[in-house]
């Protein structure tokens, strides 16, 4: 077990290093130079030389990379010259909003998807199963903004029940002050994530139903409800941990789209605006952060899985 965790940690470190190298290369792919991209087309050669010197951009590339790594290790994601603030403080003020959006919709979708998947598996090929499968099939064949768009068209434009955009505030308290604006973004995120999770839960539970322990429990006279909640659900929950881990890139992508669609004040929206405005330090800073979250998420999922399910071992 310990050696598995150590090896898995080692892999994660290598992948994180690789990601930083990739982003470093992307930074240098900018046409012209970083200085030119930041200072604009009218900067004089002298200004550019000064800027390069001040920021260590005249050093050899390997040295620049080490410097970049050093900055990242100290938690410094970069400096946005366009907004005149560090990327850290920009992200720091918005991250709580993201955690709220992603956290609430993640919890909601797990609450809906786990029982739904179980019911689908137990009542396989029933009308309930077909309906739920059909709905989730359409939901994940749909670009997630389209779902948000349909919700806006119905609840905000036709019924005038809910606001079409998120609260216009930057702080968490500001966002919470206007909960009506949160409903549509959260519902969109929840539905998309739910489609993902229930499908996985269904197959995991179908797999579980075919196992010997279910037959044994049944032979011992355990009732349907007991089998469902005591045996099947507990065993089917373990893969859900992996699921949350591997879904992270998808959920972060949904987050970006939902934030853009509803104008939700989160890191995704900042990233999008930065990409549109050519605010490269923010773009690359958020990219590194997103990759870090993905890698760590997968790492924790793998370790949690190994701890919870002793059958899993690293060869």
């Amino acid at each position: 077990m310990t050696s598995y965790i150590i090896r898995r940690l080692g892999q994660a470190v290598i992948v994180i290093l690789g990601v930083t190298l990739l982003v470093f290369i992307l930074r240098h792919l900018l046409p012209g130079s970083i200085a030119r991209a930041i200072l604009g087309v009218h900067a004089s050669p002298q200004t550019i030389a000064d800027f390069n010197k001040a920021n260590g951009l005249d050093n050899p590339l390997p040295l620049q990379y080490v410097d970049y790594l050093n900055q990242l290790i100290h938690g410094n994601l970069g400096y946005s010259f366009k907004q005149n603030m560090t990327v850290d403080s920009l992200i720091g003020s918005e991250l709580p909003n993201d955690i709220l959006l992603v956290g609430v919709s993640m919890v909601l979708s797990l609450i809906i998807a786990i029982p739904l998947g179980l019911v689908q598996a137990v009542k396989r090929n029933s009308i309930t199963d077909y309906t739920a499968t059909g709905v989730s099939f359409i939901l994940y064949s749909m670009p997630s903004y389209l779902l948000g768009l349909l919700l806006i068209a119905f609840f905000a434009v036709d019924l005038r029940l809910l606001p079409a955009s998120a609260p216009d505030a930057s702080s968490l308290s500001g966002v919470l002050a206007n909960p009506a604006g949160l409903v549509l973004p959260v519902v969109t995120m929840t539905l998309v994530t739910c489609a993902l999770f229930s499908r996985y839960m269904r197959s995991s539970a179908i797999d579980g139903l075919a196992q010997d322990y279910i037959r044994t429990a049944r032979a011992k006279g355990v009732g349907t409800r007991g089998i469902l909640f005591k045996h099947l659900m507990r065993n089917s929950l373990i893969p859900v941990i992996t699921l949350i881990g591997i879904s992270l890139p998808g959920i972060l992508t949904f987050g970006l789209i939902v934030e853009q669609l509803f104008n939700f004040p989160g890191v995704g929206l900042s990233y999008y605006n930065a990409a549109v405005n050519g605010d490269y330090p923010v773009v690359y800073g958020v990219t590194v952060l997103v990759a870090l979250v993905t890698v760590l998420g997968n790492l924790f999922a793998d370790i949690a899985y190994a701890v919870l399910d002793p059958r899993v071992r690293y060869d």
Partner: protein
Amino acid sequence: MTERTRDEIAGEDRAVLPSGVVPGQTRLGPAHAAPRGGAVRAQARWVHLRAFMENKLAVAGVVFVVLMFLFCFVGPLFWHTNQVTVAMFNTNKPPGGKHPLGTDDLGYDVLGRLMSGGQASLEVGLAVALIATGVGVIYGVISGYVGGITDAVMMRVVDIVLAIPVVYLFIDLAATFRPTLWLLIVVLALLSWLGPARLVRGETLSLRVREYVQAVRAMGGRSGRIITRHLVPNTIGTIVVNATFQVADAILTLAVLSYLGFSLPPPAATWGGMLENGVNFLYDGYWWEIYPAGALIVLTVVAFNFIGDGLRDAMDVRLQRR
């Protein structure tokens, strides 16, 4: 029973995953046939075809995709529209008369725009799937066959690129480069081969220790022969199924990117771009600028997913009949 369920689950795994991410080793493909005689193989092919034809949803998917191709590529030959120059005297016309689906805010005919936008979607979807699958198969089979340190290094590279979600990575690139159709295809393919690579590597790992592969080696067959004649042909089922899903994923990713505005520059049309433009008129009730494009994206992606599901079940035939 267990085998069948496992395959089914393996197939369903894809549904769970966001576009571009495939849990390599967890998805099992159809079982592998040992090399057989020509006649038997031909017969087996018929069994697969019949099994596929029995799946009504998959056949519906094929029919829809064929119709979509006719609509996008043959349609413009009969329905001549101007999709290049702006017609400001003819904007936001509701459906009817000379414009069965109305016009958009720049005066483009929506029906004609759906056709040319569909061309981009289908071209990108197919080309990306083709290139990504090709690259992924070569990469995966080499990684799995050679094994050892080479395998570890090659797989870490996959992990690294997978760590950054496709949409983010693409936007990073698009923020600096203005995409053309070919650049779009190449970049999307570069970001999509990771799934098939992992998948094929997993298959290769289990195939290379099979008796018939050892037999080839014992008889003096070279690695090249083992790879091209035995390993790749035996993973073909998995590859084809995965490629179909890749088409769906690429169309979806393109729709998302176009919606975010990181796709072909105007006047080129994409379905996602039409949606992005249509959103501005949500409150004006110009439904024809939103829903037709949205519907075509969903239907096309659903169709390719149906085909993929059907192919996966059809390749499973021997398991079902056993």
